[in-house]
């Protein structure tokens, strides 16, 4: 679950998973130890305080642009009760023994750490207060704190944290579950917009990213793998590559067969990356035949249609009597929906720096998921994981791609082979052709409406890529996927389309495609029922607070709340000019409730202009860092629109056709609408924002296109040829 995949267990199991991990975090050692070389006193694994009062707070998780290096330290700083201006943050290394699971995935950091990292801060504060009380010979209960200063009002004494830190580090660490937390009304950090801690370095071009890592004596590497995933090298002209000035080595790596591990290929190592690339151009590699070289998008599409007509081998859900309900329905609606493979296209291509010295490895990796990478490197190289030091480097975009660590094992292998530090950098083309794609999928839907326009039956035959009867990674659908549980007669059939395309989680895995299907088909049903789209959806959401098992259910009331909010803010129901329209959608994922309205104008030639998007959000009672939260939501919405408008990975002859931004376009500023965000603060604990704003965006767009043109788009990306004025 922690990889964000929806395969298997329900996404709502996050709550349970979070509970298990919470135990891990709480068990870390709070014992302080002032290092001999450090002037700052270490209160615990997260907090150090220097004599001048500067507080250093560790960020445990990988930073991929989600703002975690700012947000997690804010939680600690709040309860430590220091001035944010005193705080410096520092990136942790890969160190699960100290920090538990370190991952950027599943929008999990907020729900997992909201409670315990505030407790870590509060524990530090109580040690500081204990030190002051001991020093002054007063009771700790008589001491108060504010902005990094301890006060004893009765005697008029005060002391900055810096002057107390050494003594504080010798105080017994309190039990995290027993520390007292602040009254949220007194928060002065949580809820205040904070600039990302790395922003000053970003705007001045400081070397922050994996691609910028520089190690003395470092060589540069490029690695070419087969266009057909996993094919091995039949031959390569290594001598020609080595003849290029600057090239120091070129060699074949036999590799294995696991598509997420070290695959076969040819490495070229040089004194500059450009020289390595020039050498690579001369390799003239011949690839061996491979069993998957016949895979193609065209054959997948034909096969999916064929499977839809056969009896599905799996039936994950079958509520009520769908056949009888369809037979007695006043109206039935049938539609087939599909979506393509898409690529993560992180702007920073995959890369990693590794240094093999005396049988030990040091790795600098822009990864979202460090520990599985370390374990894979250990296993592949046959060395103990304890011989691998792993630094987590800021990622130039994550989006789920860097949950895989293929680049890490490649860099490690190449460094060991050449016996020198090596920076491996993929080309853009490598990156696009060796991704773990958002899986394609096909849904064959039928639903029934009664005379009052209520949905009485729903069936979905979902055809998804997979192997040997199991969906590919991130290609599954939970049996509770909305609108399951909201319609009495509900059937979900599942067929597996045999595929060996590498797939994996992409921002809001599963949801990013399923929302398009479900919210579009609901739009069709509302239209057939002659109902208002918002009213129809509110009726579908029913009148219960929560639907499904307690603690893991679907917060129907929360969704109704954001849907009403976004309808109001967008002026839903207003008159629209010809070929313009509003579209609405909602989706629950990653514990967040989102409803969105898009306004579009469709030109006579079919060109779509998104004019504005409104977002209603319920992610709990606090928005921890409003500056970061807003950025994540706006970016997620535009990311969803970018994919829906443009993106498709096509497979031909077993290989990816697209290669770069000329044939795989990303949204540019000229296409970016304003995105207006409205938060609905509820009584719930805060949850994450890296992902859940994205899924409603594509169907809000396509539903708006329908409103503007009457054309229902049932596959992505948007085909503007279908939208030309008749």
């Amino acid at each position, binding site marked *: 679950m922690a990889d964000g995949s929806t395969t298997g267990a329900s996404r709502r199991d996050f709550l349970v998973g979070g509970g298990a991990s919470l135990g891990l975090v709480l068990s870390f050692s709070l014992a302080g130890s002032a290092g001999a070389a450090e002037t700052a006193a270490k209160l615990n694994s997260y907090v150090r305080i220097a004599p001048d009062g500067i507080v250093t707070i560790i960020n445990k998780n990988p930073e991929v642009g989600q703002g975690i290096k700012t947000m997690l330290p804010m939680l600690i700083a709040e309860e430590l009760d220091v001035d944010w201006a005193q705080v410096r943050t520092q990136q942790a290394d890969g160190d699960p023994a100290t920090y538990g699971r370190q991952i950027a995935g599943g929008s999990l950091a907020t729900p997992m750490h909201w409670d315990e990292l505030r407790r870590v801060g509060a524990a530090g504060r109580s040690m500081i207060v204990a030190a002051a009380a001991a020093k002054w010979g007063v009771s700790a209960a008589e001491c108060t704190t504010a902005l990094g200063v301890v006060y004893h009002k009765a005697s008029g004494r005060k002391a900055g944290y810096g002057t107390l830190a050494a003594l504080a580090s010798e105080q017994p660490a309190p039990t995290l579950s027993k520390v007292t937390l602040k009254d949220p009304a007194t928060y002065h950090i949580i809820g205040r917009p904070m600039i990302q801690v790395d922003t000053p370095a970003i705007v001045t071009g400081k070397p922050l990213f994996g691609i910028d890592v520089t190690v003395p004596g470092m060589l540069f590497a490029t690695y070419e793998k087969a266009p057909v995933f996993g094919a091995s090298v039949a031959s390569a002209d290594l001598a020609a590559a080595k003849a290029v000035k600057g090239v120091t080595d070129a060699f074949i790596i036999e590799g294995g067969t696991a598509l997420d591990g070290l695959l076969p290929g040819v490495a070229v190592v040089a004194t500059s990356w450009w020289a390595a690339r020039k050498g690579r151009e001369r390799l003239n590699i011949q690839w061996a035949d491979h069993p998957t070289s016949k895979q193609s998008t065209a054959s997948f599409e034909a096969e999916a249609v064929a499977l839809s007509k056969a009896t599905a081998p799996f039936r994950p859900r079958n509520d009520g009597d769908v056949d009888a309900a369809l037979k007695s329905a006043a109206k039935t609606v049938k539609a087939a929906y599909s979506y393509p493979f898409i690529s993560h296209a992180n702007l920073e291509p995959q890369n990693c720096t590794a240094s093999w010295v005396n049988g030990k490895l040091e790795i600098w990796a822009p990864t979202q998921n460090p520990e599985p990478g370390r374990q894979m490197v250990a296993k592949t190289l046959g060395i103990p994981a304890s011989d691998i030091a792993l630094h987590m480097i800021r990622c130039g975009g994550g989006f789920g791609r860097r949950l895989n660590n293929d680049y890490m094992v490649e860099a490690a292998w190449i460094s060991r082979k050449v016996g020198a530090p090596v920076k491996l950098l993929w080309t853009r083309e490598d990156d696009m052709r060796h991704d773990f794609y958002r899986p394609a999928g096909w849904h064959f839907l039928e639903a029934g409406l009664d005379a009052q326009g209520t949905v009485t039956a729903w069936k979905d035959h979902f055809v998804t890529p997979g192997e040997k009867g199991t969906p590919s990674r991130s290609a599954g659908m939970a049996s509770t996927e909305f609108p399951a549980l909201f319609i009495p007669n509900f059937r979900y059939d599942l067929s597996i389309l045999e595929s060996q395309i590498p797939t994996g989680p992409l921002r809001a895995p599963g949801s990013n495609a399923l929302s398009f299907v479900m919210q579009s088909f609901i739009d069709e049903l509302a239209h057939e029922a002659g109902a208002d789209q918002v009213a129809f959806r509110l009726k579908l959401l029913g009148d219960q607070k929560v639907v499904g098992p307690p603690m893991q259910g679907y917060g129907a009331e929360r969704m109704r709340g954001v849907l009403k909010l976004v309808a109001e803010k967008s002026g839903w129901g207003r008159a629209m000019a010809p070929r313009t329209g509003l579209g609405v959608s909602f989706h629950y994922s990653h514990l967040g409730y989102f409803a969105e309205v898009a306004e579009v104008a469709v030109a006579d030639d079919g060109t779509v202009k998104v004019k504005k998007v409104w977002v209603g959000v319920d992610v709990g009672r606090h928005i921890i860092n409003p500056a970061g939260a807003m950025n994540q939501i706006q970016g997620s919405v535009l990311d969803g629109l970018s994919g829906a408008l443009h993106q498709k990975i096509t497979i031909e002859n077993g290989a990816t056709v697209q290669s770069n931004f000329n044939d795989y376009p990303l949204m540019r*500023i000229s296409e970016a609408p304003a995105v207006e965000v409205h938060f609905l603060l509820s009584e719930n604990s805060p949850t994450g924002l890296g992902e859940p704003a994205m899924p409603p965006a594509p169907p809000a767009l396509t539903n708006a296109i329908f409103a503007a043109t009457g054309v229902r788009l049932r596959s992505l990306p948007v085909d503007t040829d279908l939208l030309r004025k008749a």
Partner: protein
Amino acid sequence: MAIKLNVNGKAVSADVDGDTPLLWVLRDSLGVLGPKYGCGIGQCGACTVHVDGSPVRSCQVPVEALGKGKVTTIEGIGLSPVGKKVQKAWTDLDVAQCGYCQAGQIMAATALLAANPKPTDDDIDTAMSGNICRCATYVRIRAAIKLASGQSTDKVF
């Protein structure tokens, strides 16, 4: 061969073939790491630098084609008043998410404002469309350019 360049006001030289793209001379030979590699075909703008004040895609410029052109990168743009203003606006509005494209965005925005101190939305779209932001921070990029040019902007947070 040793090629002489002027980067951020300093005379430097690099021992590279003349057809090496400026981007790789900056990054691998000179250790100027602000300009980024994103696509290598002039599509994304992450490698944008200025040559004599004009924005260019450094991945597309063979270093030998520079002649006496003076190169300014993100590391040096803060020395110009416009560049400094743009960096400040980018900071005040916390434009970045991952930040990887932002050096290129700032270079493009600085060139825009140097030529057009009060750009309209359309001017911004035209000047900035060569720079992709995969995190899609476009709402804030537009706002930051407005802020840096002293125009009113929507509240971004």
